[in-house]
């Protein structure tokens, strides 16, 4: 599994979604459940942290197709 801190918000969010589905299925071993639960919680925290730090980046596309901070 990927290092959680390197995941983008969308990646973390999607994995969290998948983990919830897996846990809901109830077909996991106890150890798998606990491992997934721990990871799910960390993913949720990671998502919240990304949201806390998010700052809108504003760029401009010029005529030549270059993107520069506005």
């Amino acid at each position, binding site marked *: 599994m990927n290092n959680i801190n390197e995941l983008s918000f969308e990646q973390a969010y999607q994995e969290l979604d998948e983990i*919830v589905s897996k*846990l809901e299925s109830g077909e996991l071993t106890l150890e798998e459940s606990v491992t997934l*639960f721990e990871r*799910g919680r960390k993913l949720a925290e990671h998502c919240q942290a990304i*949201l806390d730090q998010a700052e*809108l980046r*504003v760029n*401009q*596309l010029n005529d030549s197709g270059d*993107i520069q901070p506005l």
Partner: protein
Amino acid sequence: MFEKVKSVSEITDHITTLFENDPLLNDVWVQGEVSNMTQASSGHWYFTLKDNDSQLRCVMWRSATSRQSTIPKNGDALEAHGKISLYAPRGEYQLYADLIRPVGLGDLFQAFERLKAKLYNEGLFENERKRPIPAFPHKIGIVTSPTAAAFQDILNVLRRRFPLAEVILSPTQVQGVDAPPQIVSAIERLNTSTDVDIILLCRGGGSIEDLWAFNDETVARAVAASRIPIISGVGHETDFTIVDFVSDLRAPTPSAAAELATPDLEDIRQELRQVTTYLITTLQTQLENKRTALLRLMRDLQYHSPEITIRNHRQRIDDLNERMVKASYNHLKLLSIQLQSKSAALHAASPQAILSRGYALVTRTEDGKRVTSELDAQPGTGITLQLKDGELKARVEDKNIHEQYKRTLF
């Protein structure tokens, strides 16, 4: 002679016929200022057109209102087209309008209607053509003027709702003759040079002439051709442009376009909190289920435990033991009874018992040999007679002498 008297309905019918047969009243444009504008929940519009001296009641059915490019507001100067007829229940004549347009914009309006009909017939407004708006836009392209208030409005909404996004402004003029080619180029550049997930095509409010670039055919076709989904937010809520019909989603204003393009951060935070809580309860439920299953298994295991078998065996052994002791006791008792009866029999057969019945045990005194035959003791032999309570000593006599002696005596 009687006057011919008409009923109200008869005279109303007559007047209606006059209206219906008048060519002007059946195809007329009327100019006036809108008042008493009402949008009924049925979709019909009711309003009054007035000038300084007169007013005219107007109604536009839903079948026509849905095709109009602007919703009239009180105070708007309008030209309305339709036929004038009588509304019999109130005895009022009114304009049944099928088209409205701003005053003095007859040419622009006709051009608008022509282009709208043309693009409609090409299928450019079809719902099937509309692309889905992504739920989480990574990058948001904005086509507008960087100096316009609309651009700052959009940025404010995005900062508040979804600062995760990256904004790429593709600047353009939004009014004037240069605006259409610049808007087309700005849309195309976002398509070719960036990987934005959504484009906001926006302009703040203005007159219908100010918004006219968004009724340009080349702009409409550029919107339709865009690989990236486009949300249009042009002017105010009541303004409709051709671009609004072609875009994938029409927002009433630029700020609204920014809102439609993004999820609300607060909603996401809330959702994340709920998911975390949900994760905890799900895991707890599963642990609880596993614990219950374990307890059930332990009970089953206990039920099949060898301890019980051992206990059963032990009991069986106890039973056997008890039966054995009981059986032995009975047997001994039986033996004891048998022994007593034998002992009695033995006693009954003992010499002493015989002596006590009057018999005597005879032995020779000299050698103690038992005398059981007359040959054992010749006359003159000393014998001992053992009786039940002692002995007698005697001597055997000669039988013949004894006989003589008896005869002598008797």
